[in-house]
Structure formats: C-alpha cells, structure tokens
C-alpha cells in the first residue's frame, strides 16, 4: 500500500472512530444496557429454571451468543448509518473528489464498524463478568470469529447504505432480516433442542455458524464445526467485499 493510500485509510478510520466515540451515548451505552437486561432476565431469572445446556449453565451458554449479537448489530448499524449520513449530507463527495481508491474507502468505513463492534464486544464481555465467570477455550478462535463477523456485517451495512434512499431504508434490514436471523441463530438455545427438520432449516441461517463458532471459542462446544464456521465467514466476506467494491466502483447511489 502506498503511503498516500495508508494516510487516507488512517484518516477515514480515525474519522469513523471519532464519530462513534463522539456520540457514545447513542453508540456504546445502549448495547451495555440491553445486554445487562438480557443477562438479568434470560440468564439469571429464567436461566436458573432452565438448567444446563450443552454441559454449561444457561447463563454461560448464552454469553457468547449475546456478545456476538451485539457485535453483529453494531458493526452493521455503524457503517450503514455513517455512510448513509455521508451520502445524505453529501460529505461523501469529500472522498469521491480525492485520489482515494474505492477499496480504501470500503476498508476505512468497514474498519470503523469493526472498531465499534470490537469495543462493544469488550464492553458486553465486561458486563457479563458481573453475572458469570467467562470460560475461554481458544482466544484465537474468539478473536478470529469476531473479526470476520464484524467485517462481514460492516460490509453488509455499507451495501445497505449504498442502496438506501431514506433513513427508513437503513432500518429495514436490521429490523426485518438481521434481528429475526440473530434470534433464530442459536443465541438463546442449542440447535439440538429443535426437531430434525428445523435443525436442518436453521443451518441455512448464516448467523448460526457465527454464533456457534464464537461459542466454540469460549466453551469448546458447538452445534456446527468451527472450521466450517470460519470457512463460511471467509467466503461470505470475500463475496460481500466484491459486491461492495463493484457498487462503489460503478458509483451506485453516490455518483450521477
């Protein structure tokens, strides 16, 4: 990477991080509060009556899934809202007139989303420590899974923002696609509890692989092979990056 591109990438990334840190009440506090409620209600109050799942207490079982849920939501929301705002206020033109390659623009925005997701991941993990002792089976798998997942959803958020014409358009995917897929993605239950047919259906949900891969990193148990999870994450990432690159290159939604 040339020095000019590196400076440009660093600038976009710092700008993105400054943005979500400036509005920390909107970006960092809500996930901490929401996840605390999940821990209290599902983990403590209801979880105690559920008993063990996958050989662990229900609270231990849902912690990785809840962290992953926060990572997915926040990486997506960060890039979709930031890039759409840049389109809406037209300050994306600052980048379009500059000699910044399109892949640097994508990396910069996605990098901002990943940074927010990682920070939220750490915050939610710290919150979970008030409720449960966190096991770590493999730190490498945890970090790799969370990095690949946040990159994937940050890129998806960027694609959403490219097509979005109104603020409603950037809330539709999280509401009608992301949230249902996350809730049905094995955050709160093991797939083994489902009838065989629904287990099979669930495996078409990509979030199942991310949640389970991440859970494997913490607990060493998973409904799917962690290597399959990592492999799928790499494939999805490459595919979405290629889509985002094509869209930005063609100037969809940003050039006339």
């Amino acid at each position, binding site marked *: 990477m040339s*020095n000019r591109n590196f400076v*440009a990438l660093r600038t976009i990334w710092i*700008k993105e991080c400054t943005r979500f840190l400036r509005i920390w009440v909107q970006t960092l506090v809500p996930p901490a509060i929401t996840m605390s409620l999940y821990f209290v209600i599902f983990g403590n109050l209801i979880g105690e009556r559920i008993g063990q799942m996958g050989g662990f207490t229900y609270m231990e079982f849902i912690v990785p899934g809840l962290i992953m849920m926060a990572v997915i939501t926040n990486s997506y929301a960060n890039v979709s809202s930031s890039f759409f705002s840049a389109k809406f*206020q037209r300050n994306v033109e*600052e980048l379009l007139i500059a000699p*910044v390659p399109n892949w640097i623009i994508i990396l910069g925005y996605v990098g901002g989303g990943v940074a927010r997701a990682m920070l939220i991941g750490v915050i939610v993990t710290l919150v979970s420590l008030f409720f449960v002792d966190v096991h770590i089976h493999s730190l490498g798998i945890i970090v790799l899974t969370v990095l690949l997942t946040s990159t994937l959803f940050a890129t998806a958020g960027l694609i959403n923002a490219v097509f979005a014409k109104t603020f409603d358009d950037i809330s539709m995917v999280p509401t009608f696609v992301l949230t249902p897929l996350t809730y049905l993605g094995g955050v709160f239950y093991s797939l083994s509890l489902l009838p065989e047919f629904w287990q099979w259906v669930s495996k078409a949900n990509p979030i199942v692989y991310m949640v389970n891969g991440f859970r494997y990193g913490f607990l060493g148990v998973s409904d799917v092979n962690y290597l399959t999870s990592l492999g799928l994450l790499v494939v999805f990432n490459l595919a979405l990056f290629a889509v985002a690159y094509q869209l930005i290159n063609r100037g969809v939604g940003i050039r006339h």
Partner: protein
Amino acid sequence: MKALNISGLTKTYRGGTQALRGIDLTVSEGDFFALLGPNGAGKSTTIGIISSLVNKSGGNVSVFGHDIDTALVDAKSCIGLVPQEFNFNQFETLLQIVVNQAGYYGVPRDIAKQRAEKYLKQLDLWDKRNQPARELSGGMKRRLMIARALMHEPKMLILDEPTAGVDIEIRRSMWTFLKAINEQGITIILTTHYLEEAEMLCRNIAIIDKGTIVENTSMKALLAKLNIETFVLDLAPVEQAPALEGFTHRQLDDHTLEVDVPKESGLNDVFRQLSDQGVTVLSMRNKANRLEELFVRMVESGRQQKDQGAANE
C-alpha cells in the same frame, strides 16, 4: 500547458436529460476563468465531471495533461473543489473537516495541521476551529469550503458559485483572497450568478447554455462587443415626458427615465437635449451590470440561432 482541456464532452442523465451536448473548452495555466450560464445550463454538470462526481457520457477531459480516463489519480490531485452546496459533515469541527480532507489526499496529519492553521487564519476562521460546522454563518461556511479545497495545495481551484448568499463585505474579502491565490499561480475556474464578480475577477470567460458553449473569449473582447448601454436617470419631477431625439428611452415615472445609449453617441447629447427642455438630472446609474446585458444577449442570440437551425432542418 493547459490547466484544463475538454473536448466533445457530453452527458445524458438517466431519464434522458441531455445536460451537455459536446463541449469544447480550454483553460490556460494561471488563468482566472469564468464559466457562466443560466440555471440548468450545464455548469455544475461540467464541474461535476471534471471533479469525478458525475460520470460523463462521452468526450475527453484532461487536467494539467492528466486524462481523467487514464490518469484519474493525478488529475484529482491537481483539483480543489468548492461546490455550490454545503457538503461537509455539519457535526464535525472546522479543524476535523480540513485536516481530514488533507488526509484523503495523503497529506500527513502534522503537515495537515500546519496548513489548517494557515488557511483557516487567512480566511478568518481560526477562532472557530473547534466549533462544529453547523454553528457557522453562511459566509463562514463558504469560506470553510475554500479552506478545505486548498488543504492539498491544488494547482487548480474550481469554485461553483462561491459567494452565493454572502454579504457584500465578505464577498469582497473573498474576491481579494481569490485574486491573491491566483497571483500565486493557482488556476481558478469560477461559476457565478454575480456577473460583476466575473467581470472584476476573470480574464477569460465561457458562456454555456442548454449544454453548449455559446461564447468563449477573453473578458476584454467580450466587453468590447457591448455597443449599447442603458442608463437610469433620476430627474427633478417633470409633468411631461421629455423627448430625446435619436435615443430609445422610457419614462418610468415622473422622475425616472431610462435611456439606451449607443457607444458611438456618448452622453453629452442626452444631457444637452434634457437641459434644453429644462429637465434637471439629479443622478445617473447603469441600469445593469455591463456583463449582465451582454450575457442576456448572448444567451438569447444563441437560443435564436439554435431555433433557426432547427427550423431550417
């Protein structure tokens, strides 16, 4: 070297609107160039294509010899753009906006901060550097966009109506600033609706209408074409409209007279005839800016020629 070379530039938007119908234009290095035209003439589309915000449909554009199709990065590095609309993040501070813009051009942060101080001070914005941009007045926002466009020290500055909505005092200070940076060697291309601004600042001019260039010449040559000027005379109230033989004139009310004066006639004859009729002239002014009259005529004659051409076909 030519700062800008445009040949056969066309643009048809999705939906079929033909904004540019084959434009040829050259701007020399160091020039202060005006691109004028009525609303919807194609000025902003032309600027958009030069600065990569609009995809062209056909033709060629090169900036300091760098073709935007084959050497876009080099071409972009030469251009600083001050757009018509405010297009910065209203929630960022002035310092963040200008330093980030430099970063997009690869200027390291420490150098960007030095330049930010230089340009924000020159444009009287340094005291506001830590304020969010949304708190600035309209004039300050315009100056902020000029500072931002200069952060990577471009060879050519393109300003799309930079003084729109700015009070006369700030407008004049911006003119002084633009003249100074032009004298330092920066080529400037300006679009404006204040034709006085173009007349005062620019050496060369192109007039564009309905996607075609209707005039492209030096400001001096253009103004020389003006052979009739209209003057408004404020009179001591008169009961009957004065007669002015040899001049087209209009009595607007009992104390205002408009007179069209051909260049070769001069004003002495007007005053003589009015004096003979006992009319007192209290004051006098040009009805419109000289360039404004020319501009309207050029655009109108261009349209007539086009209509005739279409009728002949």
